[in-house]
């Protein structure tokens, strides 16, 4: 297993290198630069700006400087939009916020999603299944930018129980976590139901029942392990997505997370910040996919590390 992990980690290096190079070059190809604004400044001032950030140097030199700073100093560079902050600082500042929001959402998503999925599978084709599946479909169909404002209208403006926005006290976490969590819960519920149904019809479940195992034991002990496989495969990239922040949720609820920085940096052509967040996202996806592979082998005895 360790050889497997070590090999996978080594493979990460060329993947990241290709990713950085491609992103770096693509950023130079998109129309519009970091200093374009509605009020054009003089060509001299613009030239001074380019020189200030080293953008006047040949491209390969800029690239190797950038790469060198990452490898040698772990320095992701300075934001061109927010001149008094470095990319390292912005990520260190915003990532924990997105991580926290993501953790709460994930908790909600797993709790609701797994229970609903198991319930629907066990009581297949009964009213319980129809009701749960109906709610789940609604959850998938209602986008966050509708659900979020609706929750705010109800709980913040109408009842006045929670704040409409902000990220100061624990109550501020409730509505955004719920909004983000419900969507994922819906997907998890569907996957769990599907996975469970497949497993529940198999011979080893019949064997377990025949041996006299209780229904609870059959479902939670024997069936769930196999039934979870599709959920686990889904969770890898989903967790990466959920913890790197959601632009929509962070905008609706005015949360200072990384999702907004990620999207806005692209709008601002804040090249260093784009590259920094892209890399963080890539590292997370790679790491989580690795975790998923390990967990899948553990859950499914048919799979082996090789």
């Amino acid at each position, binding site marked *: 297993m360790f050889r497997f992990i070590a090999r996978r980690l080594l493979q990460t290096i060329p993947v990241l290198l290709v990713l950085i190079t491609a992103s770096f070059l693509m950023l130079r190809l*998109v*129309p*519009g*630069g970091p*200093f*374009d*604004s*509605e*009020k*054009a*400044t*003089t060509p*001299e*001032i613009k030239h*001074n*700006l380019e*020189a*200030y950030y080293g953008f006047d140097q040949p491209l390969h030199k800029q690239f190797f400087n950038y790469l060198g700073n990452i490898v040698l100093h772990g320095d992701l560079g*300075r934001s061109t*939009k*927010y*001149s*008094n*902050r470095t990319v390292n600082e912005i990520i260190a*500042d*915003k990532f924990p916020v997105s991580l926290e929001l993501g953790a709460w959402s994930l*908790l*909600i998503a*797993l*709790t609701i999603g*797994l*229970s609903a999925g198991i319930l629907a599978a066990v009581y297949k084709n009964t009213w319980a299944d129809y009701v749960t599946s109906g709610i789940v479909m609604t959850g998938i169909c209602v986008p966050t930018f509708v659900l979020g*404002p609706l929750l*705010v*209208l109800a709980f*913040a*403006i109408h009842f*006045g*129980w*929670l*704040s*409409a*926005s*902000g*990220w*100061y006290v624990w*109550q*501020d976490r*409730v509505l955004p976590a719920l909004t983000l969590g419900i969507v994922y819960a819906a997907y998890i519920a569907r996957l769990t139901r599907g996975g469970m149904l497949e497993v529940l019809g198999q011979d080893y479940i019949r064997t377990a029942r025949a041996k006299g195992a209780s229904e609870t034991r059959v479902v939670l*002990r024997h069936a*769930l392990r196999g039934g979870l496989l599709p959920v686990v495969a889904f969770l890898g990239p989903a967790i990466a997505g959920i913890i790197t922040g959601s632009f929509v949720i962070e*905008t*609706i609820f*005015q949360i*200072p997370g990384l999702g*907004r*920085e990620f999207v806005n940096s692209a*709008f601002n*052509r804040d090249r260093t910040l784009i590259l920094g967040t892209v890399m963080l996202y890539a590292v997370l996806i790679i790491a989580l996919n690795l975790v998923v592979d390990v967990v899948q082998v553990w*859950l499914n005895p048919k799979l082996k590390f090789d």
Partner: protein
Amino acid sequence: MNTRTFGILFVCAALAGLPSGCAKKETAPAATLAKILRFGNGAEPQDIDPHAVTGVSEGKIINALFEGLVAEDPSGIGIAPGVAERWTISDDGLVYTFHLRADAQWSNGLPLTASDFVHSYQRMLTPSLASEYAYKLYPLTGAEAYNKGASTDFSQVGVKALGDHTLKLTLKNRTPYLLQDLKHYAWFPVPVDVIGKFGGLARKGSAWTRPGNFVGNGPFILKEWLPNQRLVVTRSPTYWDHATVKLDEIDFMPVEDGDTEERMFRSGQLDKTESLPLEKIAVYKRNYPMMYREDPFYGVYFYRINVTKPPFNDVRVRRALAMCIDREAIVSDILHGGQKPAWNFTPPTPEFESSARIPYDVAEAQHLLAEAGYPEGKNFPHVELLYNTSASHRIIAEAIQQMWKTSLGIDITLLNQEWKVYLDSQNTGNYQLARAGWIGDYPDPNTFLDLWTTGGGNNQTGWSNATYDDLLRSAASATNDTERATDYQQMEQIVADELPVIPIYFYTHVYALNPKVKGWVPQLIDNRAWKWIDLAE
């Protein structure tokens, strides 16, 4: 994963889920005891170093943290003394002598002297600092040459300290709007000694603007800055006029999304919004007229035309298009926010109102188009109207598209682009018609008419007119206001005849304001002096 793990998960989730049902609202920051204004401020500030920023939201914060030679008066249009308690202007209008107040000081207790201004302007103009607003100082003699690196001798620049409390500004041309422009943060002093300690003067984005390090000279000082969350300023004890300051604290909240902002206002988290979504305007007018505000704003919404390419290299086509836009319908049926139809380019002010007028004459427009070779729109080439992605730009573009189709029989396609791509398309002349807007920097027609000079960075239409350029130079060197106004009237007429752009409407500033906020007067140019603002029941 086994059942036990699941059991634990379920319990955790149940515990986590519990409070959502019974949570009580965290009381909003108590505005009753301390006077705290919670202000929707649009975009997150890039920085609060007056030499490192160009934005409007930064300007509002900087106006709280710094003060220039002069400041906005309570009426919102006049000029109140700032760091300078009085000033004299030479008869030819070229030399301004400011007498600084003896009690002006920085928030670290050090006195603020004339040499602080000299050093600040030197920093602003230093080429390697690459300050984007450096050109605001170009009215000073020698400033442009110094900023462009043509001269390295700062003593040639028209700013001199005559003793600790006297500052002399010498101008290239008579600039009648200079005092108004001095309210802009580009002219504010910065604490050069402090900045020098944090990585040097010619460095942007050093740590001097962080809470704890920050030093300013304004009515408020920086207390807290949580990026993308809020920036809090609190009353400054060292400000010379601190007795006049009424608010204890201002929370600048960076809320970019108009809908989020409006919900925050409704739930009592904001006292003023930056804007109001189009679809909420009618609701506020009807249900909350006490909170609805629409103020005139010194800006114009227009369509830029690329005059270098057919069919728009023919002035008759441009005139035809401009003459059949029903601007009244656009402001009354689409915008609803009290905007004024723009039949000329420069927005009206009490001092200047253009006499030029683009007629609304569909018959004449049809005639012109026929003359240009497209009778009833026949054979009219394929034309795209470019705008940056936004619902309100789209609605206006659709209305105008329809007007052109019914009156002239021409079909145009709408094309939206993401902001920076859209800017790039205009910059490189890769467009035919493009939506644009311009907000004046100072209350003088020059801030608008300057756009259309030959080869100007903001022209981007390819239009050039020698008479127009001469008139702009003539206005700059005019020795009295009447002469200037005459020049500007002629320039307006040229724009209305030649139409490198099609003006559509003059902006208003539409927002929601808590009636508790007192002293909030309409301003044509947003340069608010925060010390006049109060909060009261």
